[in-house]
């Protein structure tokens, strides 16, 4: 049984559609990412899965129960952890007090000191929340999400507002939780976050899922064209290369091809034969960002909307 199962989920507010015909599932122990721009319906979808918001249609199961079923919501909430998009911690408690309070809501919480250490606030444990920096408060927010030792953790844009080191620390924490068997469903609009954390990803755009798969294969990424770049050797012109190349923005030359093995063979064979150094040689498969922008632009153009990259 998957940890999360969503079939044809829809949510509307009057005439406004927030989520349209969304279907996906999240297996136990998996890190699953919902990737999409602001307003795509990510938070609404997650809030429905948490039981915070009721759906308009479709079928949803979280840990085997319908999250909208009030009779099992208390049970469900002892088994899930939630990290909200926006910081929400009382200002006057100390770090230890607020974690201790929330630990008391759960039947099998993690020890408070263990959580304080995990979120890197050991030296601030007895400081008031209002005295913490924004990044430290965000980490405390993460601590509140995991204090109940959840089977399933919902993270709604968990690293928004964090500095680069804070982001890396949060990623490490998520990896640690995943390695312990916690199922993670995260929403994000950061491509690097998806590549760093997710086992699978679904792209949500215009209130519906436009693609899903692993970060390395989504949108045909594993079969698409690659870009080969290198510095033109001294005394060599573009026309004298054995393959068709063009100048790149970074001062190198570049080759786009879907037949990278043959092109690289021709190129390196030519270089070895002529004694040319191919400095700065790189072979890049199309990035997740390129795939994402391609998917969302194609969908927007089909629907007569302005694509995100042109807004």
């Amino acid at each position, binding site marked *: *049984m998957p940890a999360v199962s969503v079939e044809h989920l829809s949510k509307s507010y009057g005439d406004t559609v927030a989520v349209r015909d969304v279907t996906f599932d999240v297996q136990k122990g998996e890190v699953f990412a919902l990737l999409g721009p602001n307003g795509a319906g990510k938070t609404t979808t997650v809030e429905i899965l*948490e039981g*915070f918001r009721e759906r308009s249609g479709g079928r949803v199961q979280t*840990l*085997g*129960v319908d999250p909208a079923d*009030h*009779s*099992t*919501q*208390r*049970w*469900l*909430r*002892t088994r899930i952890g*939630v990290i*909200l998009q*926006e*910081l*929400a*911690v*009382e200002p*006057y*408690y100390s770090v230890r*007090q607020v974690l201790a*309070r*929330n630990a*008391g*809501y*759960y039947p099998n919480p993690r020890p408070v000191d263990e959580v304080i250490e995990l979120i890197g606030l050991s030296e601030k444990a007895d400081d*008031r929340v209002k005295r913490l920096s924004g990044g430290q408060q965000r980490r405390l927010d993460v601590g*509140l999400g995991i204090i*109940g030792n959840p089977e399933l953790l919902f993270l709604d844009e968990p690293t928004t507002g964090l500095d680069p080191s804070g982001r890396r620390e949060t990623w490490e924490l998520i990896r640690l939780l995943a390695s312990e068997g916690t199922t993670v469903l995260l929403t994000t609009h950061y491509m690097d976050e998806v590549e760093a954390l997710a086992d699978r990803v679904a792209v949500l755009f215009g209130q519906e899922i436009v693609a899903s798969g692993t970060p390395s294969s989504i949108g045909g990424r594993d079969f698409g064209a690659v870009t080969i770049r290198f510095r033109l050797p001294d005394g060599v012109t573009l026309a004298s290369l054995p393959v068709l190349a063009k100048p790149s923005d970074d001062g190198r030359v570049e080759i786009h091809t879907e037949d990278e093995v043959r092109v690289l063979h021709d190129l390196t064979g030519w270089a070895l034969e002529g004694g040319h150094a191919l400095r700065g040689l790189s072979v890049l498969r199309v990035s997740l960002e390129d795939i994402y922008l391609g998917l969302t632009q194609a969908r927007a153009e089909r629907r007569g909307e302005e694509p995100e990259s042109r807004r």
Partner: protein
Amino acid sequence: MSAAETPVKGSFRGASDLPLVARQVRFEQLSFWLNPIGALLTIGFSVVFVVIFLSTSRNSTVSYLPINLGQYYVPAFAAYGVMAACFNVLAISMVNRREMGLLKRLRLSPLPTWMLLAAIFINWMIIALIQVVLLLLVGHFGYSVHGPHDVGMFLLVLVVGMLSFTAIGVGMSTLVPNADAAGPMVSLVFFILVALSGLYFPVKAGSGLATFTGLFPIRHMILAMVYTFNGIPGESVWNDLLVIAVWGAVAVFVSLRRWTWSPKRG
């Protein structure tokens, strides 16, 4: 699904839930007292005013009641203490919690809604009671103010007042669109009505001002506390209690219609 994973139904588990309510009340109290300036202003305001008023004019008589101003101000400010805690501060606090996302976070925890709301309400009732007791002690030991004469009715007024003004406070919070508007909106309504309803100077029944403020529950709370504290013959408080309770019921209706756990950011 194994037996250990079988969902447990229901949000109320009988007596075993009561320690959780008590625990949540303890944390609510802790949060209140961890902000000593806020706590002092909430509790000290009525005490300071009573001391000033009783020190300057406690022996003057109220023209239309057989009591002096000392016997008037102590129960009137006790009523103020209840209304300030259960309406004014509660409403502002609920708006701030909602807009900061604190209500949403707690809603997503396993703490049942009824437990959370009960703890919040009990917390403010405790703070109201602390003010009432402090005022009675200051009046009794500092200024020889005696009461309550009708203890049973005085307690009944306190209970109905606390419950109704808590409901009105919650209802008011649902009408406030954002945190910035909470203080001005709630306090403006409260302090104007408190002043016009006879807190600082007794307002004679039948006057235009009394008729106007009689539409609202604040004047009725002040009068009910003054009458039961002094045991004034011929003055029934049932009508006052009815008005207070009706306002409370209307507020419950408004709250149920307009309540939201998410920030409004209006």
